[in-house]
């Protein structure tokens, strides 16, 4: 791609050797600098960090346990119960905090797994072409036509509704977009001279793909991995909302909303707590992904207003 060639001529890299390492580092600092200037993305980082910290630290100091069902049913919000209590007499704030923990845990696991599977399969397909490409592409098509919500629901039922099962199952049906994007990029990159040079100097498939191809796709991979977290948060919430995802004793924001949304008309606080956190997580991650995309895009080098 031409965009990549431009980045090599950028003045920040001037004078460095042909070695991959200093070039990568200077690209890294450039990306970081651009990202730090992206106000919306940085604001999102702060908000997301606050949510993550709150979900980890607050439960340590919060007086009520998520499991404690000894309160009266439907207590209105007060200093004692900031978000009121549920029908069975559990403190809502404690539920939201624990739901946030699990939602984030599941989403990050899903994004991690989908990125690894998608990048490996996509890079191999794009680099090897021929039979490997057709096989991997057909596999991608296969997973794309199976309705993931049904398949995930059945598999969660086969095993159980613990958080790691839900994460694994969601990852199984979410790696295809990343594989496709990586494949396309690997295809165009493998036409470039540096890949040819690597191959000519005797590097095997594994070395070319993982030492030369994948590091050069770091921008695409980072952006898509970030967006995958946001999609996983929403996918998990949707699955749990219809009651086919995470099951007690594990929980998630989707499950917390599903259990309490019927009350939104008379007791909106039971709905809006979990709702706000869920939307904030997904919104901030999308903004961060967008900021990263701008930062990695060499065409946007401070030219635009």
């Amino acid at each position, binding site marked *: 791609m031409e965009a990549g060639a431009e980045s090599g001529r950028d003045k920040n890299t001037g004078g460095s050797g042909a070695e991959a390492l200093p070039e990568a580092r200077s690209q890294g600092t450039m990306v970081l600098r651009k990202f730090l200037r992206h106000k919306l993305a940085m604001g999102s980082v702060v908000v997301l960090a606050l949510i993550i910290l709150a979900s980890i630290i607050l439960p340590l100091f919060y007086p009520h346990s998520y499991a404690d069902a000894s309160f009266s049913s439907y207590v209105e919000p007060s200093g004692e119960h900031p978000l009121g209590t549920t029908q069975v007499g559990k403190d809502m704030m404690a539920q939201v905090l624990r739901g946030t923990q699990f939602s984030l845990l599941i989403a990050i696991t899903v994004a991690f797994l989908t990125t690894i599977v998608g990048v490996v399969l996509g890079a191999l397909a794009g680099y090897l072409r021929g039979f490997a490409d057709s096989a991997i592409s*057909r596999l991608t*098509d*296969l997973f*794309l*036509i*199976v*309705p*993931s*919500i*049904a*398949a995930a*629901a*059945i*598999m969660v*039922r*086969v095993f159980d509704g613990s958080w790691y099962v839900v994460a694994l199952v969601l990852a199984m049906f979410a790696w295809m*977009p990343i594989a496709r994007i990586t494949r396309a990029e690997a295809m165009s990159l493998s036409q470039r001279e540096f890949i040819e040079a690597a191959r000519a100097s005797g590097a095997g498939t594994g070395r070319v793909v993982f030492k030369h191809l994948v590091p050069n796709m770091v921008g695409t991979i980072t952006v898509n991995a970030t967006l995958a977290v*946001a999609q996983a948060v*929403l996918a998990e*919430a*949707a699955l749990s*909302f*219809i*009651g*086919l995802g995470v099951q007690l004793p594990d929980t998630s924001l*989707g499950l917390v*909303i599903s259990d309490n*949304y019927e009350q*939104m*008309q008379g007791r*909106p606080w039971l*709905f809006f707590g979990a*709702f706000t956190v*869920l*939307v904030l997580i*997904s*919104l901030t991650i*999308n*903004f961060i992904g*967008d900021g990263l995309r701008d930062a990695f895009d060499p065409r946007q080098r401070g030219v635009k*207003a």
Partner: protein
Amino acid sequence: MNLVVYILRRLAISIPILFVGSFLVFCMVAAAGDPLGELRTQPGVSQESINQLSQQLGLDKGIVPRYFDWLGGFLTGDWGISIAQGSNMQPVFPKIMSAFEVTIQLILAAEIIALLLGVAVGVLAAVKQYSPIDYIATTMAFIFFSMPIFCVAIVLKMYGIDLNLMINDLGWDSWLGNPFLKTTSPESLSGDGFFDSIIGYIGGLLLPTLSIMFISFAAYSRFQRSSMLETMNMDYVRTAQAKGISQGRVIMRHAFRNALIPVTTLFSVNFVTVVTGAIITERVFAWNGMGSVLVEAVNKNDPNTLMGWIVVIAVAVVVANLIADLVYGILDPRIRVG
């Protein structure tokens, strides 16, 4: 002619994938446990009827012959029986078809509005880049894109109920119906006479359609905006402008048509998301569509219904891809060659 070959080739790829996919799903459904487990523990059910049911479901056979039995039945319209209602067995085919009709109605209405609106807003935002319209459209798209669909549905339902109360207070319920906006499954959409039917349709479909529409709209408008921006920076657009063609004509004739091409790919990618969205929206508004069928089938471990459900959706995905390919072929003449 080339287009026909192209479609046939796409179909030829899809059919083996559907075949392999349905077999894998069949194995997965079979692995989900004994569908008659619940029935076996019920006191009033005789061993004889369980044996009969087990035979009817083919549980006495191996997985491969059972799959081919199912496939043969599926292709001839006999989709087996549902055991979701215990020993009161229903055929799966009419059950899934009536649910699918409900869901596809929602999806079609929502997708058409989302496409038209999304493309229009995307083009407008691109043409007026960095204007207030662009910022508002981008922000809205971002928010809806990040919203879980059930939350949109829940919030809309909440405001729908408030709006109904307001309509009643204003006394408009005499001609809009009470409640005007149906927040639970409507028994029937049409009313007496033409006008009442229209009101019935709008009131019944508005909230669920809007919920699905918003999420799709966000994706379409964002995609259309970036694709439009890209084409507006193309050399041929600059050439057209330099020739002195009016800006409106340049946008419509030169840029817009080409900027539509990427959106058709989004339509097929987005389709599964929209189906999932429809399923969840139905749950919120208590519609008896594919969503409730799925939840019941998974909870009751009802193999034939699950298989029918999954294959119907998979075929719908293939058809949606085919439609997208067709539109792609029409918009992009390059695809027709070779």
